[in-house]
């Protein structure tokens, strides 16, 4: 990569302007996240009570996995429990606040890592970096968990750190063992936070396999040795947790969760003559659950109980809006407030447009990586992570159908959010370079406005 001094002065100035813009976005993003973490009611977060019980019992009482989240590894709970103790010692009205601020810090750090990741995957493309950062910071699916008492923000950070280390390893010509061991530690740490930490491990394994195949004969052995080192360390770090789950519950990943082994319990049926003979819960989600548009309810009533409960509509509504009501409506201290339907509908429409751009960018990147795997090897993990995440989400929703879409939360996809943001930015950057000036400016302003609408929704 060319050093800063080697660049012509005009390019340096341009880069510094981009640097300032990125800094401005990061400062605004940080302020938003801190504010949200300070005002968002901790108890409103996804499964907040379960997480609090687990963290408190782990750190204060020394008991592992005492709540309904017993199947979740203890990595984040150890940190959160210490912060609960700190909140208690400080006599805070809500002792979860320090841990919520920790979530905000994790997401902010991820935004910084995102810049490093883009620079390594797409060197010297400042517009791509800027759009990726903007999309990441504006997405409600990213902003919401940053205010919550929830482990997902930490697995997001570790997954992104894993991506950065992996891409750095692929780009270096020296292939240092220390970086491979470091990557392995990150891969293992991610698995010790949430089961979705396995995604980056799988992506690293596939990327290394391609790297070995694409490597020149002289480098192949060294590549394979470093890959084996990273993957072995990653497995060894997480192994005790898998052994514990297997020994205690007979299932190393899900810990034999009742809703997984027996299926989710349906809500009490509301029966009238018109809805007589309610169908029993299916063992597996039907194909129609994945192909349904949910229209028109998915646009006019994009929230739980509003109809249109199918895979894509739920995922879209929860990514860009608030399908489950944990953010802008239905939280415990405002349970009787009806959702602002107009605002939620706007989010679905805006999010639909942004998703179209993101999906196009992801597909284009996939095709480009498949066509030139050797040249585009550092971009392979960025394409692979969202695909692994989506596949895992589809599998989960299919195997464990829920009557209210509870198994299709956008929160599950959070570790892949930086990669989705890069796919969005890639599409915008490529189009920017080819479109006529007027169209380019109009499209850029339009997309920026859409992102601003989303950013506004992220204010708690």
């Amino acid at each position, binding site marked *: 990569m060319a050093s800063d001094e080697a660049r012509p002065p005009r390019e340096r100035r341009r880069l510094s302007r981009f640097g300032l813009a990125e800094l401005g976005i990061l400062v605004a993003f940080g302020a938003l996240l801190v504010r949200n973490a300070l005002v968002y009611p901790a108890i409103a977060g996804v499964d907040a009570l379960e997480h609090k019980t687990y963290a408190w019992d782990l750190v204060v009482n020394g008991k592992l996995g005492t709540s309904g989240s017993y199947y979740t590894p203890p990595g984040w709970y150890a940190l959160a429990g210490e912060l609960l103790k700190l909140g208690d010692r400080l006599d805070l009205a809500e002792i979860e606040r320090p841990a919520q601020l920790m979530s905000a810090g994790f997401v902010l750090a991820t935004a910084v890592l995102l810049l490093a990741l883009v620079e390594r995957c797409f060197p010297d493309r400042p517009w791509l970096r800027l759009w990726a950062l903007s999309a990441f910071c504006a997405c409600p699916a990213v902003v919401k968990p940053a205010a919550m008492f929830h482990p997902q923000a930490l697995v997001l950070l570790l997954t992104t750190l894993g991506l950065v280390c992996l891409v750095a390893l692929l780009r270096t010509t020296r292939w240092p063992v220390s970086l491979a061991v470091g990557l392995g530690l990150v891969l293992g740490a991610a698995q010790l936070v949430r089961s979705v930490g396995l995604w980056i491990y799988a992506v690293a394994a596939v990327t290394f396999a391609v790297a070995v195949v694409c490597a020149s004969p002289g480098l192949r052995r060294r590549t394979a040795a470093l890959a084996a080192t990273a993957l072995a360390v990653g497995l060894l770090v997480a192994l005790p947790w898998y052994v514990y789950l297997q020994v205690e519950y007979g299932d190393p990943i899900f810990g034999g969760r009742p809703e997984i082994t027996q299926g989710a319990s349906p809500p009490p049926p509301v*029966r*009238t*003559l*018109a*809805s*007589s*003979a309610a169908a029993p819960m299916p063992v597996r989600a039907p194909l129609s659950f994945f*192909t*349904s*548009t949910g*229209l028109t309810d998915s646009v006019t009533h994009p929230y739980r109980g509003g109809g249109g409960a199918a895979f894509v509509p739920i995922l879209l509504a929860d990514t860009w809006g608030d399908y489950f009501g944990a953010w802008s409506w239905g939280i415990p201290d405002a349970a009787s407030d009806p959702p602002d339907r107009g605002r939620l509908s706007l989010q679905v429409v805006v999010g639909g447009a942004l998703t*179209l751009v993101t*999906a*196009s*960018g992801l*597909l*284009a990147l996939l*095709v*480009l990586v498949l066509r030139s795997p050797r040249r585009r090897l550092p971009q392979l993990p960025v394409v692979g992570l969202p695909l692994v995440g989506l596949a895992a989400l589809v599998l989960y929703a299919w195997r464990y159908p829920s009557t209210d879409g509870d198994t299709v939360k956008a929160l599950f996809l959070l570790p892949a959010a930086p990669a989705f943001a890069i796919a969005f930015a*890639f*599409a915008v950057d*490529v*189009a920017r*370079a*080819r479109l006529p000036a007027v169209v380019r400016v109009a499209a850029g302003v339009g997309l920026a406005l859409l992102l601003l609408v989303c950013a506004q929704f992220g204010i708690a």
Partner: protein
Amino acid sequence: MSGERTEWRTLAASLLVVATVGLLWIGGWAVREATDTDPTALERVAGCLGERGLAVQVPAEDPLAGSAPGGSLTVDITGNAATVSLWQDEDAAARTLSTYDRLTSQDLSDRAALRGDGVVLWVSPPTAEQTSAVYGCTG
């Protein structure tokens, strides 16, 4: 640059593919909406009773039941018969039950039943087996 051109062409093709899939997806929904009609509540009840091997007659000969906005039917079951009428809501169904009560001097307490927004009137007091079979289809 050829790299830029390749990226642009691939992106344009991808955008086209994604937009086409999206349009086909929504188009499929629109066609289905235009051609599909959901079964009415009466059709669902009649279908359910039919699946249980019961003889169903639509509409019922009872003129009051016949005026129900949701429709009516008569079902024969092991020597007894029930007239089912579907009303717009529970209040309307309750008013129908009162009307039945006013129209006859007989005690209807063990022959007539309110089932949500529907009314079931039996020819004779039903057995547990008969109510189970019919009410299982009427909510």
